[in-house]
């Protein structure tokens, strides 16, 4: 029998590395159980984010969570972070094994 897949939402945030600590504490406040962070480089509206030194470093954060928590998180990002920080935020529909973990 094929393993059972469950629908889930994947939030991806690509942002300045300085936001790591504040965003992770927001995740904890919202009860999000886990996240994955990787270093990222690239270009965008804020120019060359080449990662040569901390002020030009980006990170990519991925969070799997259920819809209600996701809404709260997106609202928070919109209200407190979009105005002053450079962030790219997108949500994708994914399938996960062991849905009770997210």
């Amino acid at each position: 029998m094929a393993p059972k897949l469950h629908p889930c939402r994947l939030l991806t945030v690509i942002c300045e590395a300085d936001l790591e600590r504040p965003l992770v504490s927001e995740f904890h406040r919202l009860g999000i159980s886990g996240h994955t962070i990787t270093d990222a480089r690239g270009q965008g509206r804020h120019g060359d984010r080449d990662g040569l030194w901390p002020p030009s470093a980006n990170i990519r954060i991925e969070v799997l969570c259920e819809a209600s928590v996701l809404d709260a998180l997106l609202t928070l990002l919109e209200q407190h972070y979009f105005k002053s920080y450079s962030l790219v935020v997108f949500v994708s529909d994914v399938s996960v094994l062991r849905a009770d973990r997210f």
Partner: protein
Amino acid sequence: MPFEPVILFFLLGLLAGVARSDLKIPGVLYESLSIFLLLAIGLKGGIELARYPLASLAGQALVVVTAAALIPLIAFAVLYRMGRLPRADAASIAAHYGSVSVVTFAVAASFLSRMEVAYEGYLVVFLVLLEFPALVIGVILARRAEGQTRWGPMLHEVLSGKSIVLLVGGLLIGWLAGPEGIKPLDRLFIDLFKGVLAFFLLEMGLVVASRLGDLRKAGAFLIGFGMAMPLAGAALGLLVGNLLDLSVGGTVLLAVLFASASYIAAPAAMRIAIPEANPALSIGAALGITFPFNLLIGIPLYHGMAVRLAGEF
């Protein structure tokens, strides 16, 4: 040669960056080198600190910290009133200039050693003490007009930031262990110091080259400010150094501390505490103008002035 040869590595990095060379120093190496430099500077200061009675330093430290608090206030007034910058930007830039640049200090110390000018080793304590008060002053200046300040995250960012942890940590370890205790580590922390500094300056040259675009955003006023402010700071530092009867070398280092602008601790702290300030302006001025200005012109100039001042009194 009137300047410190280690600066040539900075110029090489700058040149490579401007010429769009594929030379790239990975961000992790920047982190590693800065950790080494901060720890080594702390350790050296701690060893020197062990030679002086702490009580006599407390009075001097109070004078230095009080005088240095003028720098962000002056910088803010100039940027906000004369430069007509938005309050948040003026406050954030003022905080960068009130805080200090560890690498500029290291280059100045190495310049003095090469010129065989002695200085008080405990000046590193002032380096530590001057790192964060200006950041707090900057936040107060930014928030005077309105609402809430995120003091908790800001103070946490500053006091638990790697520069304070490593400088204070190194200072304590050096002080507790003393010159004999640190001897086995000399090869790594003392002998290799200048090589690592050269490497770091090469990297900073590349970083400055990549930020040159920011200077266009900064505009002529901020570029002028980036050169005038270190001169004003150095003048204050020279006066205070003289008032405290520091040696010529010690006076030069104090002038360098007052003249330099932070680009390790301040950008991260200001990004969290004053998010609406544009980091391109503060980093563009502090790193793009003031850092090279101090390295190439400032340090030998402040030395010349300190020598003249010592002759006058």
